[in-house]
């Protein structure tokens, strides 16, 4: 077997994740990644590319994205304009075919990693429209009557936030991985990777405070790994001593710079309320 995906300097890959990715890479099938926002789904694609030393092609999906845009688009308006101006280009239709990300990935010189980010944002039919293309790694261009076929089947990584259910036929063709929220040990390793040599005390206090915030009931958006990393960066930048995070002693349960963890006014409000109640109860 050729290359194998493994943890990199910045990304901790768990065993189940490695297995799924390596299966997808070896069998040249798409890998579907789900998980809470902020657990590193998109990051995974960059790290796979980095770890295997391959170029990455990103296709970020929006609610208006159509499957065809990933293949190619025919710019009829430009051709019409050119025909009015008497441009010579107009006779060759291929001048007006805009290549999409899939085309780019199929014709790349070496095997690339193709990231299809947040596929669930698109229309419910979107995955179905790409079934054949991802299966065969080929498609037909009607305007020029040519078939674009992948020379090296790209490593396809698809992320989803579970906003829409994906069709069964699509799922059958993928390897599936669900990124679980890391437990404290794994989280400590992840933080260590990003901020090597972080003081043990600060790390412990930060993690305790972080998991406490996550446990607050009724939050609209629970803070996740990426928020924790941002927060620690801020803590370091502001040079906050670990003692300041130890909430019990201080009767001041709001961790400093909590804005990095809570991204929603109502959540902050709710949190403050709870802290207030908590403090009142202690008296």
């Amino acid at each position: 077997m050729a290359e194998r995906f493994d943890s990199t300097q910045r990304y901790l890959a768990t065993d189940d994740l490695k297995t799924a990715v390596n299966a997808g890479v070896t069998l040249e099938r798409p890998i579907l990644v789900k998980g809470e926002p902020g657990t590193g789904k998109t990051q995974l694609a960059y790290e796979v590319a980095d770890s295997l030393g391959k170029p990455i092609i990103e296709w970020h999906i929006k609610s208006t994205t159509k499957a065809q845009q990933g293949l190619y688009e025919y710019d009829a308006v430009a051709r019409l304009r050119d025909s009015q101006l008497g441009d010579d280009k107009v006779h060759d239709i291929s001048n007006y075919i805009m290549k999409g990300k899939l085309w780019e990935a199929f014709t790349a010189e070496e095997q690339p990693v193709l990231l299809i980010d947040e596929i669930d944002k698109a229309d419910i039919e979107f995955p179905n429209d790409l079934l054949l293309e991802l299966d065969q790694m080929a498609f037909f261009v009607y305007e020029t009557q040519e078939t674009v076929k992948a020379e090296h089947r790209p490593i396809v990584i698809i992320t989803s936030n579970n906003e829409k259910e994906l069709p069964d036929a699509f799922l059958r063709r993928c390897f599936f991985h669900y990124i679980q929220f890391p437990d404290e040990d794994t989280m400590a390793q992840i933080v260590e990777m990003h901020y090597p040599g972080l003081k043990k005390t600060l790390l412990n206090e930060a993690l305790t405070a972080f998991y406490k915030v996550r446990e607050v009931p009724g939050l609209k958006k629970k803070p996740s790994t990426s928020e924790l990393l941002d927060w620690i960066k801020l803590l370091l930048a502001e040079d906050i001593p670990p003692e300041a995070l130890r909430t019990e002693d201080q009767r001041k349960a709001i961790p400093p710079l909590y804005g990095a963890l809570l991204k929603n006014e109502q959540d902050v409000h709710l949190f403050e309320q709870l802290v207030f109640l908590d403090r009142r109860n202690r008296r």
Partner: protein
Amino acid sequence: MSSWCSWTGATAADVLLKFFFMLREAGLKASLTELLTLHESMKQGLAAESVDTFYYLSRSCLVKDEAHFDRFDRVFSAHFQGIEQALAGLGSEALPEDWLRRLAELHLSEEERQKIEAMGGFDELMKALAERLKEQEKRHQGGSKMIGTAGTSPFGAYGYNPEGVRIGQGESRHRRAVKVWDRRDFRNLDDTVQLGTRNIKIALRKLRRFAREGAADQLDLPDTISSTARNGGLLDIRMVPERHNAIKVLLCLDVGGSMDDHVRICEELFSAARSEFKHLEYFYFHNFVYEGFWKDNRRRHAERIGLYEVIHKYGPDYKLVFVGDATMSPYEISYPGGSIEHWNEEAGAVWIQRLLAHYPKAVWLNPEPQKRWAYTPSVQMVQELMEDRMFPLSLRGLDDAIKSLR
């Protein structure tokens, strides 16, 4: 690594096939394509490292929804348990049948091994296991036939029978810690219910029509053309609403007590709603609404969600749907302290009015037949509180309820 190639040999493939059908029996919709993918990846040596890798690989191949992970874990545990013990002395060269054979050598005396042979060997053992699992409905402890704990049957945990196949044991008594599939990490994600009746499909269609309302912001080309033609060639643009599912629903379900008779229909409604609405939140209550709901029925006392919290988190654009038989003592509605489960400071009627003030669109679905409503005073009271927006949980009632929610 190369030994995995022989997975395609008859017996090893059989083990996988049996596993595959057990998964399907457990309600996982694994398909032939996925099974073949699994075979192919094992041929490539992807699962050669350890049983854990095999577990991850098969999960990644066969299950495509984290809500089904827990069920997969249970089937995996039932099917492959005992393997890791046998594997300890074998290393990565192990084949499944070798695992099983090794298991026998490790634990059985010559005499016992012959007994097993007499039973028809290990294939029979696995078959018998599957049958017993089916036969057995309740949790079982002791005895000599059923699967459970501390028995002398060949199957189950903590048994005395040396060849016992370990099932769902939190921790092995003699050996290593919990296997990953025994940890049941994904238990809370399993929210499935059986469905598939015609009833739900019809209900679904009703819900769907109602979910496709919205602002007309898309060009309707055929209508524009025909309307322009009829307009004598002057452009007459026609718009249609975009097909989208922007409806948000809060589903509050009465559980326990008199609702036990209606569990099935509630499950059906729940699963239909769940597949139809992107924004669906559900809560449970008992008999009537008080200061708190809960989301996990097993931990109803430990993890309450305050009503104010619900109001704070879900805006008035949510449609509020109660499902309950509204059959109780009138005190449970109108008096403080009337709840049968706890002391409520404020009457249920006060709490439901708070909810109704926040959510203008609300209905109460009642699984009791409508003709019986008149005989129960509490139903009348709830009907009044809901301002006549209580509907029977029938197709017709659902239709009316949806009309009122619009």
